[in-house]
């Protein structure tokens, strides 16, 4: 087991992770009460909750274990080391970057710490359309409260709202759009602006510094760099999982785990692929379908004075109507990252105009948009290759246009002299009275926008009807007696808001369901 620097802080739980280099060449044969595949938001919470009940828990994580002391606060390095496909995961069309963490702690290590509960309207839709009356706001409230308490979730204090965030709030109030400081899972934020490269000083309460060390402290075993590949199946039970650990020299070592219960929490892309690869659990034909991802656009507003939007909390404030996602509500989040991301988010032109754009980037007000998109995508295997089919639906494009319109209005109200839109060719709005004409002129289409997804979801749909869904209301797969899915893949429809709190909550809820059934 690796000994990490943080473990030396007396009195705090330590995270012990076995790396592939520590596994013998002949491999390992292990037994556990519960095998958890994936160590991100869902896997970590489930591992802790079940370890807390006394179960012998084993966690397999495909990504590496990178202690926070090794984070470099440098986005290109973080993309390379902490993200799925080194940050190169895209849709089949190639015009949507889909960012997910691939490391011990998963996406929670590289997210921007924004915390929202699932909107009531979405939960009501899940009840009426998918038979999930058990997931009412009232039923989930104690679970939301528990994870929020455990993760130090709080609304940003005034000192955590940077100039960029204050501009969003001020502009939004002037045009009548609700706005406020955002809530985050963070303790004593050092305001470095490096959330998405991993929090080097352990202020962000990711799974790397919370539920995973807590599970570890309670005896859970965690293997990094170990990818689950195949299931041994007997009737309606998975009896063992075969995995491969790849060490630093590239040597592959077999790992076999026999477990009474299997929890697949590999995220909305990898979880369905694992089921598809093993051809199980899919009597409904729904595995991999219903992919949604909150396609997100960045918008910049250029001001006369310097703003340094990248200084301070990565996400500081929010605006929009998050209570009405099903009626076109959108969410804007004030935030900006360094120049690699800045230049990837927005096309600033070519030649001298691009140089001027980058020179002026410290004058940019910046925010990203989120919408409640429809579940029109699909994740599947094409031979051995992962495919993510997802193109922006025309209905969602209208929501996106509304979000862009709202952002531009806010920016001009806040004093911007120009607004940059996230098209693949430089597009600006030069004054408030041009907002409608420019936004109305935008068309949906492939490779027209620079779109990023931070929130894949929906590919293992939860529902009461086994013919229309993969996972039942308690998280158990309809077709299997001992396999649960607690990650974002089970969301029947997209949330609109950042999903981490809802994932933690669902994982807590499903853990209780598992224990109640045991």
């Amino acid at each position, binding site marked *: 087991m690796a000994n990490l*620097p*943080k473990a030396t*802080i007396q009195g*705090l*739980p330590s995270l012990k992770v076995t790396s592939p280099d520590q596994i013998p060449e002949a491999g390992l044969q292990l037994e556990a009460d519960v095998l958890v595949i994936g160590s991100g938001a869902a896997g970590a919470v489930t591992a802790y909750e079940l370890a*807390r009940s006394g179960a012998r828990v084993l966690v397999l994580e495909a990504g590496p274990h990178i202690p*926070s002391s090794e984070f470099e*606060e*440098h986005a*290109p390095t973080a993309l*390379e080391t902490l993200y799925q*496909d*080194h940050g*190169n995961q*895209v849709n089949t069309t*190639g*015009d949507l970057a889909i960012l997910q963490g691939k490391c011990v702690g998963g996406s929670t290590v590289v997210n921007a710490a924004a915390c929202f509960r699932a909107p009531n309207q979405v939960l009501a839709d899940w009840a009426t359309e998918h038979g999930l009356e058990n997931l009412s706001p009232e039923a989930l409230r104690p679970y939301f409260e*528990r994870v929020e*308490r*455990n993760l*130090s979730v709080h609304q940003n204090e005034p000192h955590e709202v940077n100039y960029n965030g204050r501009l969003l709030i001020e502009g939004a109030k002037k045009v009548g759009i609700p706005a406020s400081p955002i809530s985050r899972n963070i303790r*004593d934020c*050092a305001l*470095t*602006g*490096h959330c998405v490269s991993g929090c*080097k*000083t*352990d202020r962000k*309460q990711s799974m790397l*510094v*919370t539920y995973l*060390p*807590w599970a570890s*402290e309670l005896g859970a075993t965690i293997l990094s760099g170990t990818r689950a590949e195949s299931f041994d199946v007997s009737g309606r039970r998975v009896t063992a999982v075969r995995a491969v650990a790849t060490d630093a020299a590239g040597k592959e070592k077999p790992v076999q785990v026999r477990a009474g219960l299997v929890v697949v929490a590999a995220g909305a892309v990898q979880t369905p692929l694992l089921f598809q690869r093993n051809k199980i659990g899919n009597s409904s034909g729904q595995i991999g379908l219903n992919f949604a991802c909150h396609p997100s656009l960045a918008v910049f507003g250029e001001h006369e004075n*310097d703003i*340094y939007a*990248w200084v301070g909390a990565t996400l500081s404030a929010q605006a929009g109507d998050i209570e009405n996602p099903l009626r076109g509500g959108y969410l804007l989040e004030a935030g900006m990252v*360094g*120049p*690699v991301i800045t*230049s*990837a988010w927005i*096309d600033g032109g*070519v*030649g001298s105009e*691009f*140089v001027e754009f*980058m*020179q002026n*980037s*410290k004058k940019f007000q910046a925010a990203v948009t989120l919408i409640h998109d429809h579940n029109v995508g699909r994740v599947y295997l094409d031979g051995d*290759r992962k495919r993510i089919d997802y193109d922006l639906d025309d209905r969602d494009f209208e929501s996106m246009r509304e979000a862009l319109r709202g952002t531009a209005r806010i920016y001009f109200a806040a004093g911007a002299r120009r607004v940059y839109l996230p098209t*693949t*060719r*430089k597009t600006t709005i030069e004054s408030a009275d041009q907002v409608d004409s420019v936004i109305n002129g935008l068309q949906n289409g*492939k*490779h*027209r926008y*620079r779109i990023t997804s931070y929130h894949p979801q929906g590919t293992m749909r939860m529902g009461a009807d086994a013919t229309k869904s993969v996972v039942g209301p308690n998280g158990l797969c309809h077709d299997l007696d001992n396999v649960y899915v607690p990650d974002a893949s089970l969301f029947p429809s997209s949330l609109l808001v950042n999903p981490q709190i809802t994932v933690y909550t669902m994982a807590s809820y499903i853990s209780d369901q598992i224990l109640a059934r045991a």
Partner: protein
Amino acid sequence: MRTKLYRRSFTKLTVLTGASVLVVPACRDDAVTPPNELTLTSDERDLFERFAEVFLPTDGSSLKPRAEVPVVDNIEHAFTLMDAPTLEQVRIGLKLFDYGAVLIGLHFARFVHLSAQRRLDYIKRWEDGLEIQRGISTVLKKLVCYGYWKDIEAGRAIGYQGPVSKAGGIASLGNAPMPSATNG
């Protein structure tokens, strides 16, 4: 086998005009660069250099001089991070962009051989072009931006702070304490 792979993928990209079908097979031998070759070919290095010259002209600006940043080497590093099918697609796109100037652009010369002004105009036409042209021009821009802004000092030249915790002596808080039994 490699040639077969190359051609199969190429057919997916030929939603352009028929002209592209004529252009790409007429490229030099490295048109069939093995898709998993992780070093840039001389054609690819030329393309990125000529593209960066007009896309990111740092002379006379407050930006760090491009010549002091290993832009193309950094892009080569980015190639090592792509899986083979993605890399193959990118390479085909680069080829199409460079040689597309011959017939699609009606310049009768590769992009790398055009004057600076013509290169600039060519990029702008691709930004406004068909789906595949928009996609390829965006990939080129993103790669050049990655290659340049990967340099921490290039970021500092525009006021970006770069890494701060170590220099600022910000202490780690360590792992969070275990929740109390009553909290869960």
